[in-house]
Structures are given as structure tokens and as C-alpha cells.
């Protein structure tokens, strides 16, 4: 039933203004400070963004495994990790499927290490793990692109690390996991019996198109 109200002030004793808007729905207007449609139109369309956050994990202990982070939703992934170790060590990775690490001798890598004017390189093959990064008892950070982990193809990794804040250095670890198997996860761990003291790893999916 239409209600006519004169003057100003709170409306009381009215259960609805018309037949299609309820009191509860009217309550949703609480806090609105400007035109709703204008706000909706201005909101970014996140469905077209190229990068989608998948998961993150705090780093501690000797090993961090992330399950079900790779799926058919994305072909390629971005891994960002900043970390501190208990002591100087490489950080390795192993591809993971259904909760188990792949320790077969199918990891190969090429390394480029640059500190001041010294450049060294190394290559490894038939390894049971891949090289992701390098660090120590100081803050380091690595950005790694992981290609096609979830497809039955060789997984490719490109990892760039900056380490040692007192004498900044960088290390590039590019590698293959040369086995045509699909993986849904990854394990990260420092070598040389070191552990993660602090840090965070974040994994993002890169849109295919």
C-alpha cells in the first residue's frame, strides 16, 4: 500500500515502500555516499587481468611444499619469493604430483652468477633437483617464471635472484625438468642443511589469452 509521508526524519512503522523493495533491501543502502551505478561502472573489470593470485605460503623450516597450485586454468606461472636462510645455500625445487616430489634424475640447469665485476657460470645435468635461487642469513628475492608445469611436457624455469645486500649480486638459474609428466605442485628447500628463517612465497597464474 503506498504511503505518503510529509516532513523529514526517519521513516518508522513502514514495512515496505512498494511491492518489490523490502525493508532488508532498503537497509543495504546504509553507508552509500554517491550514485551506485556510477560506482559500478567505475569498478575495474578484473576478469580481463593478466595475473591471478593463486596462493602464498610463509617460509620456515627445512622444506615447503605447495600442492594443487598448478592446474589447467593456466599454462604458465609466476613465483615470487623473498626469503632469509639460516646460512648460505642454494634454494632448490622439485616438481610435485599428488603429494609426492619427483626425485628422478631429469633436472638440468644453466647458471650465471654476477657479483661486482666477476661473472661465473655453471651447468648441471641429470640432477635430482632443480636450482631456483641462492641466499643466506640476509634478505634475498627471486622471480621465477614456470612454463607448463601442469602439462605432460618438459617444465621450463627462468629464475632471477638478487642476494647479499652488503655486496649486491645476482644469479640467474634457467633450467628444464626434462620429463613429459604433468605436475600440480612444487617443493622448495634450501640445500647445505640450511633452513628458511623467514619469508613468503607467492604463486600467480598467467592468463593464456
Amino acid at each position, binding site marked *: 500500500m503506498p504511503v505518503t509521508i510529509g516532513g523529514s526524519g526517519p521513516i518508522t512503522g513502514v514495512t515496505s515502500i512498494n511491492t518489490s523493495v523490502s525493508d532488508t533491501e532498503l537497509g543495504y543502502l546504509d553507508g552509500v555516499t554517491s550514485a551506485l551505478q556510477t560506482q559500478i561502472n567505475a569498478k575495474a573489470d578484473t576478469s580481463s587481468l593478466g595475473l591471478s593470485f*593463486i*596462493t602464498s605460503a610463509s617460509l620456515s*623450516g627445512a622444506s615447503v611444499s*605447495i600442492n*594443487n597450485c598448478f592446474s589447467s586454468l593456466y599454462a604458465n606461472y609466476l613465483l615470487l619469493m623473498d626469503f632469509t636462510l639460516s646460512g648460505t645455500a642454494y634454494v632448490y625445487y622439485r616438481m610435485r604430483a599428488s603429494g609426492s616430489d619427483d626425485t628422478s634424475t631429469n633436472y638440468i640447469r644453466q647458471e650465471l652468477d654476477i657479483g661486482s665485476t666477476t661473472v661465473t657460470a655453471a651447468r648441471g645435468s641429470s640432477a635430482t633437483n632443480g636450482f631456483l635461487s641462492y641466499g643466506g642469513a640476509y634478505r634475498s628475492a627471486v622471480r621465477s617464471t614456470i612454463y607448463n608445469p601442469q602439462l605432460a611436457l618438459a617444465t621450463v624455469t627462468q629464475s632471477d635472484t638478487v642476494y647479499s645486500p652488503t655486496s649486491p649480486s645476482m644469479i640467474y638459474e634457467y633450467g628444464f625438468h626434462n620429463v613429459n609428466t604433468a605436475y600440480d605442485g612444487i617443493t622448495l628447500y634450501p*640445500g647445505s*642443511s640450511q633452513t628458511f628463517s623467514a619469508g613468503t612465497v607467492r604463486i600467480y597464474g598467467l592468463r593464456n589469452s
Partner: protein
Amino acid sequence: MENVIEVWADTGEVVERPFTPEELAQREKDAADYAAALAAAEQAAAEREAQRAALLERLGLTADEFAVLVGGIA
């Protein structure tokens, strides 16, 4: 402190647990492999340095002089 952190991206579950016997055996093997590779790399580097020093002595150059000669920084 627990040794392993396991995270499930799809559910957000986080578990801290000790190594399984299989994981522990793999970790010990990793450590042994790393120690062997490190020893081999250090031996190779020492041999290369010895060859370099012998060559410089034969040429009658110091390391600094050689660096200047090839355009590098000592």
C-alpha cells in the same frame, strides 16, 4: 620446530610435520650428493688456479699485471 610445511593451494590448509622416513632418506642423499659435488668443484678450481699461477710464473707476470694486460680488473 617442525621440518616440513605443506600447503594446499585449493583449500588453504597448512600442515607442519616432520619428515617422513622416505623424505629424510632423500634429504640425507641430497646432502651427500651436494658435499661430493662441492668437493669436486673445489678440486677443479684449485687445479685451475695452480695452472694459472704456473703459467703466470712462466710468463714472468703478476696477477695484477696479467689483469691489466687482458683489460680486466684485478
